């Protein structure tokens, strides 16, 4: 027996093709997901060099960022957005890459459809030209975002040149209280360690609270890992994982499935494996979180108040807080629950899955969206939409006054027509509250789906536990 290894060590070791120099390795990539925004220049690079896609069968493409969520039948009206989606379609046809078109029910946000289709499996290396590729780590796969030059590298070689990251473990213990979700846990962690807290590391999430999460919850947690600066997030696969994968279209079929599960069961950190950094959190003490500023680390329990720049010891943080308060139009000391919102956005690769929509329905059933609030729900994929409609959730949403849209990234980054106007304030289930993220001058408060639902009903940030 060799030294005890972490889950990350194991996946890394089993994918090293060669060592180049010092710390640079050629790492094999099992799955490459592609979307329209970060791939055109990569395909063009291949074309210019006369190169092919090495493994079209391990590659998968879908358009999500530019896709309108209303009147999709009419196509895309913005000429630049249309060109980008058309370019993806032409590139996938030319290079033989499987592609879900804009009229396919199975389309959606790339990080939602990977798991949904069984393209995401434990022990794999998965990359995509998108930082939230970390989502797929929920299955115990090593998944991270890459730049467009690296997309081209993976297309051409099915490998990536990488340095190994360090190991970090975040252990979340205790029972998760009612009203607290994976999103709150993620915000609490980022609030604690900061947006650079995981830089240079791969984070493994452990502890009974993490184990108790559904696959949807685990995906939310791993999705937000990139906001903590880590390269990837990982959760060792278990029965919950295997159960989720079973029977999905691209998952191993009977026979191969059993063989795969036997291997997947070995995918966990060994007793005594070394972590360079350890963080612990007690879930039972958590209450729902919201962000007040323009960085995901600006996260506080909903019962708190907007901080003052002077509250920060670090000079850089003080400056950032001052700038954030100005941008967000908030005054230090005001209660977070007094912040009024005029928009609510429910969706994105963080919280656009069926479980998220069920949580929203539970809160808004029999209630009304406040008349000052513009609230939209954008399912993460066509299949999530179909499922929600089969459960009658869409009726609950529409009756409450939400707009029920077609799938896509939508107002998570506002590349399509869904965006905030300057000064608009939004409670959002997405992942980034950066300046201008949801539209130039728009103000974002990150929350869980249940908290977003509560804000929609009351018109201000609200502790969902009070709505019962």
């Amino acid at each position, binding site marked *: 027996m060799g030294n005890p290894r972490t889950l990350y060590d194991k996946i890394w070791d089993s994918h090293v*093709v060669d060592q180049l120099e010092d710390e640079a390795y050629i790492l094999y990539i099992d799955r490459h997901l592609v979307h329209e925004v970060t791939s055109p220049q990569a395909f063009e690079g291949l074309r210019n060099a006369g190169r092919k896609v090495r493994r079209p069968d391990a590659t998968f493409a879908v358009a999500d960022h530019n896709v309108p969520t209303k009147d999709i039948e009419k196509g895309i009206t913005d000429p630049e*957005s249309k060109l980008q989606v058309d370019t993806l379609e032409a590139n996938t046809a030319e290079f033989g890459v499987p592609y879900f078109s804009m009229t396919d029910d199975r389309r959606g946000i790339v990080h939602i459809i990977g798991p949904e289709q069984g393209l995401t499996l434990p022990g794999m290396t998965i990359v995509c030209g998108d930082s939230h590729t970390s989502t797929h780590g929920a299955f115990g796969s090593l998944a991270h975002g890459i730049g467009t030059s690296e997309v081209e590298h993976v297309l051409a070689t099915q490998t990536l040149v990488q340095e190994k990251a360090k190991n970090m473990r975040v252990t979340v213990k205790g029972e998760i209280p009612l009203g607290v979700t994976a999103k709150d846990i993620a915000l609490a962690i980022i609030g604690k360690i900061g947006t*650079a807290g995981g830089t240079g590391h791969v984070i493994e999430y452990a502890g009974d609270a993490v184990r108790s999460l559904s696959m949807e919850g685990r995906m939310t947690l791993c999705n937000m890992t990139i906001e903590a600066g880590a390269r990837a997030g990982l959760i060792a696969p278990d029965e919950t994982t295997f159960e989720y994968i079973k029977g999905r279209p691209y998952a191993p079929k009977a026979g191969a499935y059993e063989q795969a599960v036997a291997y997947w069961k070995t995918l966990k950190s060994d007793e005594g494996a070394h972590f360079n950094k350890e963080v612990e959190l007690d879930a039972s003490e958590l209450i729902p979180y919201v962000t007040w500023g323009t960085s995901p680390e600006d996260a506080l329990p909903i019962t708190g108040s907007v901080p003052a720049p002077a509250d920060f010891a670090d000079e850089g943080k003080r400056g950032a807080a001052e700038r954030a308060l100005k941008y967000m139009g908030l005054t230090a000391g005001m209660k977070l629950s007094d912040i009024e919102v005029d928009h609510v956005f429910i969706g994105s690769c963080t919280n656009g899955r069926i479980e998220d929509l069920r949580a929203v329905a539970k809160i808004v059933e029999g209630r009304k969206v406040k008349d000052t609030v513009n609230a939209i729900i954008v399912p993460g994929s066509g299949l999530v939409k179909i499922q929600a409609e089969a459960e009658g959730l869409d009726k609950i949403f529409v009756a409450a006054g939400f707009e029920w849209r077609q799938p896509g990234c939508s107002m998570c980054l506002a590349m399509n027509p869904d965006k905030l106007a300057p000064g608009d304030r939004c409670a959002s289930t997405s992942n980034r509250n950066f300046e201008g993220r949801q539209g130039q001058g728009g103000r974002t408060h990150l929350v869980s789906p249940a908290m977003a639902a509560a804000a929609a009903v009351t018109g201000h940030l609200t502790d969902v536990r009070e709505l019962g």
Partner: protein
Amino acid sequence: MEKFNKLTAVAAPMPLVNIDTDMIIPKQYLKTIQRKGLGKNLFAEMRYKDDGSEQEDFVLNQPAYRNAEILIAGDNFGCGSSREHAPWALLDFGIRCVISTSFADIFHNNCFRNGILPIEVSQEDLSKLMEDAERGANATISIDLEAQEIRGPDGGVIQFEIDQFNKHCLLTGLDEIGLTLKKENKVTEYEETRKMQQPWL
């Protein structure tokens, strides 16, 4: 990719922490299908007013820094989205080197693929360089990648660390894909073994 070896240039100070890639290049400019032409949109929302005219107090709009080729910035530079449009925009503007106390992982990698040198320094050195940069166009900073040195306007020298593979790539302007393709037989060998061990993949 353009090689990088030595550079002497004006450095623009941006004493902000967590400068994210949404700030560096806002999403409305991600709809391009080319790598070039993004320089005019670099930091667009900080650099221009709503009517499109320049925000005079933004550093890159000040006469002293219009030709800056080095950026000195606060901690965690390049966090957020993986968009390579961020280094493309920096490069197209003319920035060849960014100095900070830390960089986000994906942005850091993206720089090396585009001939931009990201340099990590201590907080103390950053503060000194920030002060130097604030002195404007007369205070140029020199970078020597081979020697791994930053030379300030007063002749003070700061040594920096960089991993040897990335250093080599920048110094030679290497085509990384070409390099990996030379190892194609190793990849094929790997694939064959994997097929036996994990046939479901």
